[in-house]
């Protein structure tokens, strides 16, 4: 039997039969000569609780709702009615004449109808929308931008720190060379610095001895 709060699911045949029986019972209540709802002698087959609710199918298949088998119209007067869709079920020996018997009969026939599988879905599938896809694309985009930015920055830094062109260092010293050139002393200081730099240039590696036979073949 379906859970009571699952109103969106189609009604199973058992429930349908139960509801129709209840409706018939309600209709009888307006009868000027109502019969007792519960007979003096309890009718054993009434609830037919024996019919267990079908187990939920593990792999629910959405099938069109079956056309419920029309149930016998329960007349207030004891009119024998035939069950239209119960060819395989043998007719009961004695037709029920009271509502409770009718309910019992209707419920008893419930499972006999060609009831299809229950459409109850314990875990209904939800279709995935485009939202997750967009989120993944956004993450990939942000990651790509981050990685690209990092390597771009590295490239720019390497361009700044490699000013050697044609084997010659063309970089300009970052610091301001020398003292301010406003005074005689500072200019003389610059001249002394340049003189010292020139004298510090080591040209011994350009001497002819560096390629002498002794140097090459020793």
């Amino acid at each position: 039997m379906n859970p009571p709060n699952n109103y969106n699911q189609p009604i199973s045949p058992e429930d349908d039969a139960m509801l129709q029986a209840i409706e018939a019972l309600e209709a009888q209540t307006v009868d000027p000569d109502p019969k007792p709802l519960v007979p003096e002698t309890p009718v054993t087959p009434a609830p037919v609780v024996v019919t267990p609710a079908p187990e939920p199918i593990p792999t629910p298949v959405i099938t069109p709702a079956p056309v419920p088998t029309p149930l016998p119209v329960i007349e207030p007067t004891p009119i024998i009615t035939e069950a239209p869709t119960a060819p395989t079920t043998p007719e009961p020996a004695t037709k029920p004449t009271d509502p409770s018997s009718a309910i019992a009969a209707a419920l008893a026939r419930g499972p006999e109808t060609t009831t299809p599988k229950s459409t109850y879905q314990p875990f209904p599938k939800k279709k995935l929308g485009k939202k997750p896809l967009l989120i993944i694309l956004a993450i990939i985009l942000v990651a790509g931008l981050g990685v690209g930015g990092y390597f771009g920055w590295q490239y720019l830094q390497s361009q700044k720190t490699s000013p050697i062109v044609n084997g010659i260092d063309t970089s300009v010293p970052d610091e301001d060379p020398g003292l301010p050139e406003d005074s005689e002393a500072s200019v003389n200081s610059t001249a002394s610095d340049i003189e010292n730099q020139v004298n510090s240039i080591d040209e011994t590696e350009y001497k002819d001895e560096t390629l002498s036979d002794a140097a090459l073949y020793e």
Partner: protein
Amino acid sequence: MEHRLNARNRTITTIVFIAVATILVVPSVQAQTAAVQTEARCTIAKTNLAERLAVIEKTRSAHASVHSDIQAKVDSLITSATTKEYNQISALTTAQASVQKNIDTYSAKVVAYTNTLKTASTIDCSKALATLDPAIKAARTSLTETNTAAATVRKSITEQTIPAIKAYAAWLATQNTTPTTGTTE
């Protein structure tokens, strides 16, 4: 008599044979020995040339850094002298241009020298042994030219740039004592 002649002929034939064999065989053996020695020397020379190449690359880089620094200082002085309307500023600019020209020449010579060292250090001693000596000769010529170019750079800085800077300093001294300024030609 005939027997004696035969013995003499045999002796002569033997001597001739030995002489011919000596002429033909010994030089080839000597040549083979010389070839092995040259190949060994070639291998040693190549190793030394490769080491020399690495040293020259370092030297060139160090010299380029110093030259660049000196030129930057002269640039700064020229800017200052221009601001102060130094009347002998052409001495500074001429010296700077001359030094720059010599630095460029020196740089080209160093590049040529390193190329000759690369050529000599990559010779295949087993196949192109004969190319080693010309390569070393070319490297020596290039080395001499490089040494001359480096000396020229030094000379131009010492004899042109530094005197020009000192002249500018002297002019600044006169400007400080006579603040009314005046371009004395």
